[in-house]
Structure formats: C-alpha cells, structure tokens
C-alpha cells in the first residue's frame, strides 16, 4: 500500500521533470540555457523513474541494475552537456542578448587550442 503510493509519487514526479526538460528545450532562449533544462531535469526525471522501478520490484537483481543505470546517467549527462556547451560556445552559436557578463569571451585561441585565464590579460 505505502509502497504503491511511493512508486506512484516517484513515477509522476519523474515523468513531470522529463516533461519539463522537453518544454525547457523549446522555451529557453539560447543553447546554454537549453542545456541547463535538459541535463538537470532529465537526470532527476530518469533517476526518479528508476528509483520507482526499484521500489516496485524490491528485487536485488533489479535494484542493482537500476542503481547502475542511475550511476551512469549521473556520470554521462554532465559530460555530454559540457561537451555540447563547450563546442557550441566556441563554434559561435549566438547567445542570449541579455547575458550579464561573459568572462570567456576572446579567451580561447582556435589556432593553438589554448584557453587563457583572466590573469593572462594583465601580463600577456
């Protein structure tokens, strides 16, 4: 009884967060903010659904697999977001015009692949 309730809550919350990730991709103004929506909401959503599966079956084999899936999502989602965001930024995907500041601007040298830090500006 209480188990079913827990499973339902986690299922609904998980799918809701995945749904949000989808809407976020549509609604956010630029690439980087779309990545914010998909990485975080997607990870949490998939994680919650997996936890719901584990709670429903209460079986060592299933639990081990769900934990492995959660672990791999936690490992891969941020790496993928980082790779896409970095590539997008350096390729020159336009960013939202309401950005407050951009510390990374002009710090990357596409020829040498060296990324400078802010201190380099003072003593080049």
């Amino acid at each position, binding site marked *: 009884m209480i188990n079913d309730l827990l499973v339902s809550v986690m299922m609904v919350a998980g799918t809701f967060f995945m749904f949000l990730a989808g809407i976020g991709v549509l609604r956010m103004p630029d690439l980087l903010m779309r990545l914010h929506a998909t990485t975080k909401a997607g990870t949490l959503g998939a994680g919650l659904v997996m936890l719901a599966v584990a709670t429903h079956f209460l079986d060592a084999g299933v639990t081990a697999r769900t934990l492995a899936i959660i672990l791999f999502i936690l490992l891969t989602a941020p790496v993928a977001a980082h790779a896409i965001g970095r590539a997008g930024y350096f390729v020159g995907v336009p960013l939202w015009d309401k950005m407050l500041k951009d510390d*990374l601007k002009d710090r990357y040298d596409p020829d040498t692949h060296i990324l400078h830090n802010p201190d380099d500006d003072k003593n080049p």
Partner: protein
Amino acid sequence: MSPLSWNLILALVWAAITGNFSGANLLVGFGLGYLILGFALRDVPDFARYREKMPRVLMLLTHFLRDLLVSNLRVAYDVLTPTHYMRPAVVAVPLRAKTDGAITILANMISLTPGTLSLDVSSDRSVLYLHVMYLDNEDDLRKQIHKLEDRVLAVLE
C-alpha cells in the same frame, strides 16, 4: 589491501552468514563492517583515515542530491512561467583542485547543481569557466563553488 576492500569483504561475509544476498542486507553488512573496522583498527593510520572519509562521502552525496532537487525546482518554475527571470552569465571561477579526477568530479557536480553548467577549464587549470543561469551575486557564487570544492577535496585527499 585497501580498507574499502576489507569493508566489502566483511559485507559479503555478513551476507553469507545471514544467508541473504539482497541489496538491503549487503548494505547492513557494509555498515556493520565499517563500524567494526573503525573500532577494531582505529590505531592503523590507513583505517583511521578511511573511518573519517566515509562520513564525508555521505555528506557529499546528500548535499549533492539536495542541490539537484533545488536546482530543478528553480528551473522548473522558470520554464513554466511565461516571463523569463534568468540572469545568465559566463563566469570564471578560480580552481584549487589540481588533479584530473578532482576537476572532473567537481565539474560534473557543478553541471548537476543549481543553475550552473561547467563549460571549460583554462589550459593552465587555474580557472573553471561556468555558465550561470541566475547570477544574483558573483561573490556568493564563488563562495558556493568554493564550498563544493572543499567537500570534493575532502573526499579525494
């Protein structure tokens, strides 16, 4: 052998003795093994360090999960309401972590916590560039990352 593998062996022994290899029982065995190692071998430096490290790992995990939840609620609110409240920026944050492993873990955790996404590390590894969704106060952000870094370094070193 490392303290962690001893602890895992104790967990397996516990599961074998109780005749129940379910995940929950292995966890109980791991907890008991941790207590036994922490008490019986408290004079061995390796094990003493292991005893201190374990709670830090748990701390890191719980903080991480809480941050993940909070970050989602804030982004969820912004996705669902018609006006955009975002104040995005790309900020350079100084790094103290020097090893590949520490920087990787820190960058991954940053990507999964409140409104921050790691973009790149400068070539000399002194600075991490982040994309922030809500830049209210740059010093607060630096402090927040600093705290996260402390927790990551406490586990790894």
